[in-house]
């Protein structure tokens, strides 16, 4: 019998993966669990293991080629006939979709080797890093209980095409939204019209490609609005100066403005839980996910592209801890060793282009988050103080907000607090 090796799904928005390189050749013996090939997904490179002891079959997809999820890559010839599909109960599957969990990652404990609902819930909880007081994600839905369902393929397609599932009328069994419905509801034409011949472009791959897809989706589906504030950075700079030596001594890392900003954002999020939310587009009409932790992602530019490693519970970490964590993540990123837990679970993103001399910019939301803060450089600028023009170091903060989740006033209050914490950083110790 043969056990299939197929392109696994890692992460909800992944629709295909690229074969990076084969670690074993056709005809080679493999052991169960042994890595057989490397694939690249939207965020990371991952090794695919042999599903059983046996001999590797023919290579069906060469290195460099991409296949959709579920596509056959090879197989392992074994003696024992074993099932090749992923056994999970219907209830477990529903729970996985509800919690955004990839079933291929879930350890099965049910009778017959099935994944049961408890396995999914357990996995969801383990996905949080080991903190004693790990709390459950609370899913608050505003949708009707008797809502028509969406086929998994339709859901993936809707994500990729940026289709709001509420706008897709279901024509499948039981009123399910199926692939055709999503295609019909998709407003964007799938193929560009190009009357004039243009030279063929270099196809995007890997991280670049996924960034492109995600940004397009985000910008197309989330109604962005922007709030700007200019914050005086004097106190911030002074605080940083004062702490540099101590932090270096404690964790061997140089404290940056971004580190402090991560702490500021974490604190502000903790105080404004209405901003610490995410968008759930899978429920018809949409739903608000209230996140339990304030996990701040820091946009990092790598050679491969943009990644956003997440510093968890930023409000609870000390500046030294944040600096250390940030350094770890950036190092890992540079080495291409970021793992999924490093990248998932963010509730807010901070993007700082100040070091490149940018005064001010508007960032695109990092889906499914509600807001992203774009920070420009600290520069001496004229400001009015007591009726007189003086020169102070200031920085521009621009908050991009998803209007489905937040209104102007809520966002403004949050940004106001961020600015306040920057201008009076001693408030962080309150």
């Amino acid at each position, binding site marked *: 019998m043969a056990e299939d090796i197929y392109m696994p799904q890692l992460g909800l928005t992944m629709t295909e993966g690229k074969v990076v390189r084969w670690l074993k050749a056709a005809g080679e013996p493999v052991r169960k669990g042994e890595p057989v090939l490397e694939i690249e997904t939207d965020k990371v490179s991952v090794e695919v293991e042999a599903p059983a002891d046996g001999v590797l079959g023919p290579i069906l997809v060469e290195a460099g080629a991409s296949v959709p999820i579920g596509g056959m890559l090879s197989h392992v010839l074994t003696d024992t006939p074993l099932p090749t599909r992923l056994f999970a*109960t219907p209830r477990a599957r529903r729970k996985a979709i509800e919690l955004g969990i990839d079933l291929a990652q879930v350890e*099965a404990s*049910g*009778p017959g080797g099935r994944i049961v*609902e*408890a*396995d999914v819930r*357990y996995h969801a909880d383990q996905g949080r890093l080991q903190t004693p007081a790990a709390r459950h994600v609370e899913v608050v839905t505003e949708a009707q209980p008797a809502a028509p369902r969406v086929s998994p393929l339709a859901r993936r397609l809707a994500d990729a095409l940026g289709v709001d599932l509420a706008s897709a009328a279901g024509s499948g069994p039981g009123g399910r939204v199926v692939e055709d419905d999503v295609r019909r509801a998709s407003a964007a034409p799938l193929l560009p019209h190009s009357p004039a011949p243009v030279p063929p472009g270099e196809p995007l791959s890997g991280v670049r490609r996924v960034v492109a897809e995600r940004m397009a989706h985000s910008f197309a589906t989330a109604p962005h609005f922007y709030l700007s504030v200019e914050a005086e950075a004097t106190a911030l700079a002074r605080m940083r100066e004062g702490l540099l030596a101590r932090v270096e001594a404690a964790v061997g890392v140089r404290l940056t403005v971004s580190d402090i900003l991560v702490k500021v954002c974490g604190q502000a999020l903790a105080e404004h839980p209405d901003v610490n939310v995410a968008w759930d587009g899978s429920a018809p009409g949409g739903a608000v996910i209230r996140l339990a932790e304030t996990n701040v992602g820091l946009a990092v530019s790598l050679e491969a592209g943009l990644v956003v490693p997440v510093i968890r519970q930023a409000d609870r970490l000390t500046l030294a801890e944040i600096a250390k964590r940030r350094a770890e993540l950036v190092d890992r990123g540079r080495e291409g060793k970021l793992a999924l837990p490093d990248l998932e679970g963010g509730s807010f993103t901070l993007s700082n282009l100040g070091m490149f001399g940018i005064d001010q910019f508007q960032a695109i939301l990092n889906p499914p988050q509600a807001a992203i803060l774009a920070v420009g450089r600290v520069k001496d600028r004229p400001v009015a103080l007591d009726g007189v023009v003086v020169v102070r170091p200031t920085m521009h903060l621009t908050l991009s907000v998803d209007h489905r989740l937040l209104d102007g006033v809520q966002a403004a209050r949050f940004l106001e607090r961020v600015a306040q914490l920057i201008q009076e950083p001693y408030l962080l110790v309150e």
Partner: protein
Amino acid sequence: MPETIEMTLGEAIREALAEELSRDPTVFIMGEDVGRPGGVFMVTKGLYEEFGKDRVMDTPIEEAGIVGLAVGAAMTGMRPIVELMFSDFLPLAMEQLVNQAAKMHYMTAGQVKVPMVLRASLGTGRGAAAQHSQSLHALVAHIPGLKVVMPSTPYDAKGLLKAAIRDDNPVIFLEHKMCYNTVKGPVPTQEYLLPLGVADVKREGQDVTLVAISRMVHVALAAAETLARDGISAEVVDPRTIRPLDKATILNSAMKTGRAVVIDEGHLSYGVTAEIAALIADEAFDYLDAPVKRLAAMDTPVPMAPILEVATIPNEQQVVATVKALFGRRY
């Protein structure tokens, strides 16, 4: 006057019969040994003396004829209650039930009704052997036009029997022979009816649904107690009426718990458990966390020797083991 009185299943049935005989002169009982002898299970004891031989008729041993007469009497203004000692005798009367009673209302497009009740005992436990221990409710539940009721408690039995007698359709009312004298429970002293076609949740739970019929209700309840000690909360659903089946209650329970075991004393194959399990697997599919399981009588005739007989039907340990095997991680 106390609100309820403790009585046995047999006593509750007798009360229902007596009350309906008093209330409605068109109601009468007919069957073998039901009159002067008081019934082989003593259910009709005393009714002959109270109501006379016209209302409680001893018949010859002619099951087909007796049931046929009941059909004719029901078609022409009476409400006969036929007692067939054992449900094993249903086959003797099947032509009258299946081709006549079940279909008269339909074939005449509503011109005639057949408001009769056929009561019989069923089940193992008496060493009564293969021809006196069966639970053949599946045979009659299969026929459109018939209703089938199987109470498990005295409270259910009295209320359902009264309702069955007042129902304008042919109702087959099956009582477990081992429960007549051993199953006791409170019965209201005030008159009450229970609707046919409505299930009863005998015990609420979160983790698994046990759909149980007749005596198996008590087996399921005992199993639920044992399971509770192991931290598994079982919900026991008693359909009470097999046809028409209260699908909504069964499905809501299965959708809540995600696991279901159907427990019955009919044979495993081609029976009532298959119907209920298919219903759950079909309409609660997306909510299931485990396959739907069935526990029923073995697909063999019932052997006489008690040590063999008891092994042919589901017991508490089997229910507990079956339930536990449905779980993976408990989280």
